């Protein structure tokens, strides 16, 4: 399903570029239907939208607020919640009719937990109107209970590789074309360590970083869990999963110098030169020698927007204040990107980051909330998402991501991306940090067969909400 959607996007992207961007007025009419009856019901409803994290840029927020005002006359209040506290807050606020946010962005992997207990309104009747099968299907799937849609994709942002061209060159390796090649390349770089930096990683991956680590499971045809007779079963100890974990262990042990307890936070720190010793010629003021004194890794895996944090440190003029401030500037000569390759020549299936969006079942402003969803899934907003580097929910708009190397890597890596199981208890598996533990233990050389058996036994009951 996902594959077809993505394929469709690729094939039609050229044409869409014109239909979506060339004639915006026309496109606007088609996707945001001026259904007068629903608009009048939504009239004057003041609603609250919870956005998770700071991923949605200010311009997009303002667009939502202005458009909502125009369409309904009501005000839209946007509140940003942090990812770390989102589940706690949803747990208390969603069941409370007086204080529930009306529309909520929720992590795609957290969605099943709340849809299964009835936290979200049934929006099956809007599914076709909001994009239908054009919507990213793996995300639609985690928002479903049975045949009914409760949450829909908001945006995606899959992860790909950022690498140091200079170090790859000095180590005499090229960008790997298959997963096996990748596995051996990063070990080779770590061994050669061309810049002779202490604790240098060919590929930096934290011991607890299962979100990136599961790509190796997926790429080897393994999975985290499967459904058997209506019950979820954890499949860590399946042969394919173990194969992936074994490759990962090799990387942990021989290519990565990350701590066993490091997570996937800010990996770009390690690929940037954080400090440079510069020696200048006394008379000509010419730089004679430049030595990076702190660099951690040749390769990292990160979401696309990480490239704003990668590069040479320079002064950039702040648009708002007109002051000079420090910023990283991407340097195509030093840095490059590529999607993690699979062994079949396609990009490897990586973890699809991103989030879903839905209407709180207890919200008193159902009509207004539905109107907001119409705005979010309109051509204009989907285009805005793409233009801001966030993978649009509607695959017709993938082209709006642009055509630079980041857009290409994002679309390629997303074309094959996968999600965590749509089980009731998945959010609990995450919150109990079971995967962090398992991956951390594997990273320090633990016995994979025994560990996966142990964690299968722990995870299965939680998946079915029996933990």
């Amino acid at each position, binding site marked *: 399903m996902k594959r077809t959607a993505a394929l469709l996007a690729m094939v039609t992207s050229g044409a869409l570029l014109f239909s979506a961007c060339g004639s915006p007025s026309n496109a606007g009419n088609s996707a945001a239907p001026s259904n007068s009856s629903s608009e009048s019901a939504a009239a004057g409803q003041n609603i609250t939208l919870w956005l998770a994290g700071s991923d949605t840029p200010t311009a997009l927020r303002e667009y939502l607020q202005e458009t909502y005002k125009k369409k309904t006359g009501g005000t839209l209040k946007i509140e940003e919640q942090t990812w770390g506290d989102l589940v706690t807050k949803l747990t208390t606020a969603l069941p409370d009719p007086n204080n529930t946010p009306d529309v909520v962005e929720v992590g795609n992997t957290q969605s099943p937990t709340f849809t299964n207990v009835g936290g979200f309104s049934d929006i099956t009747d809007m599914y076709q109107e909001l994009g239908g099968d054009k919507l990213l299907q793996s995300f639609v799937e985690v928002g479903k209970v049975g045949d009914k849609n409760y949450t829909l994709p908001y945006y995606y942002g899959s992860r790909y590789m950022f690498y140091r061209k200079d170090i790859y060159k000095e180590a005499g390796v090229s960008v790997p074309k298959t997963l096996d090649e990748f596995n051996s390349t990063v070990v080779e770089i770590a061994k050669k360590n061309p810049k002779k930096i202490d604790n240098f990683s060919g590929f930096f991956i934290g011991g607890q970083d299962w979100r990136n680590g599961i790509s190796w499971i997926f790429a080897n045809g393994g999975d985290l869990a499967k459904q058997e007779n209506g019950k979820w079963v954890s499949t860590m100890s399946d042969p394919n999963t173990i194969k992936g974990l074994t490759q990962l262990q090799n990387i942990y042990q021989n290519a990565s110098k990350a*701590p066993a307890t*490091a997570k996937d936070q800010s990996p770009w720190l390690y690929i940037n030169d954080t400090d440079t010793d510069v020696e200048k010629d006394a008379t000509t003021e010419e730089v004679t020698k430049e030595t990076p004194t702190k660099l951690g890794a040749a390769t990292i895996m990160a979401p696309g927007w990480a490239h704003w944090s990668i590069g040479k440190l320079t002064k950039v003029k702040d648009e708002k204040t007109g002051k000079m401030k420090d910023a990283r500037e991407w340097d195509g000569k030093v840095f490059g990107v590529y999607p993690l390759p699979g062994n079949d020549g396609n990009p490897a299936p990586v973890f699809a980051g991103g989030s879903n969006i839905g209407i709180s079942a207890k919200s008193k402003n159902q009509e207004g909330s539905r109107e907001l969803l119409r705005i979010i899934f309109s051509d204009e907003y989907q285009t805005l998402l793409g233009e801001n580097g966030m993978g649009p929910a509607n695959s017709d708009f993938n082209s709006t991501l642009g055509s630079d190397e980041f857009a290409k890597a994002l679309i390629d890596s997303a074309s094959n991306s996968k999600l965590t199981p749509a089980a009731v208890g998945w959010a609990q598996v995450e*919150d109990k940090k079971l995967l962090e533990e398992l991956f951390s233990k594997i990273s320090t050389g633990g016995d994979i067969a025994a560990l996966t058996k142990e964690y299968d036994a722990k995870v299965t009951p939680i998946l079915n909400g029996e933990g």
Partner: protein
Amino acid sequence: MSSIAAPPLAQKKRKFHIAPYMLILPAIIVLLAALAYPVGWQIITSFQEYGLKQQFGQPPEWVGGANYVKIFTDPQIWAVILRSIAFCLVNAALTVIIGVALAVLMNSIVKGARLVLQVGLLLAWAMPVVAAMTVWLWLFNWYSGVINWVLGPAFANHNWLEDPISFYAVATIIVVWMSVPFVAFSVYAGLTQVSGEVLEAAQLDGANGWQRFTQIILPLIRPVLMIVLLLQIIWDLRVFTQIQMLQDAGADYNSTDLLGTFIYRTGAGSANYGMAAAMSVFVLVLTIVLSAPYVRSLLKEDNNG
């Protein structure tokens, strides 16, 4: 000192008074209003299976003492309990010892130095926990922390939070750093009540520093010490924010969990509120047991007085 607590009036007037009841009434109303429902809910929920479904409106299921049985039979929970007790005792003891030492020091130095020490402790005390933790986490950061830099190349990229023992050492440093000022100031306030003449007289009598400390100062500050120690035990047993923020900075969760974080993750994280409630009730009982000797002697002093 105990005799101070003697309410002289009370001894004379033993007849029934409405006044004291009126005086405690506001406090009781506030406490009841804020705590009766939550505590009652907690006790009831501890006998139920109460998860996210119940939170969204389904009726909870009574499970009797099942949650409590699990506390006593789950080795992982026992590990958390034992670790918490050990952490609490070590931290409370260190805090009180260092606090008393600093208070005594404060009492025996020149005014300028005393002011510097007081302001220093005050600044540390005034640091909001979240702000202090943010700074400490950065100081101990494995990649760019100052502490690794100061310790030299051998500690380059050393991750202090990876090994549970060193994790607890870091946590102890932070917790003690945060709690010592309170102890030092409380004890110092107590020390200032020891009149200098008395100490001088003792010195003339040939009592050395240690004797003066154990035989004059210690008995005098005993009431302050007792309360401070009791509070430290209570607070350190429930230490939460510091551990949670350290864990989030990169540590193995299950081997570093203490009661506070364990209860929070059982409840908020795993949506197992019944179990979390049972654990909370258990912690309450545990605290009462741990502090029973102090409470008893505090009460005794209170009543004798």
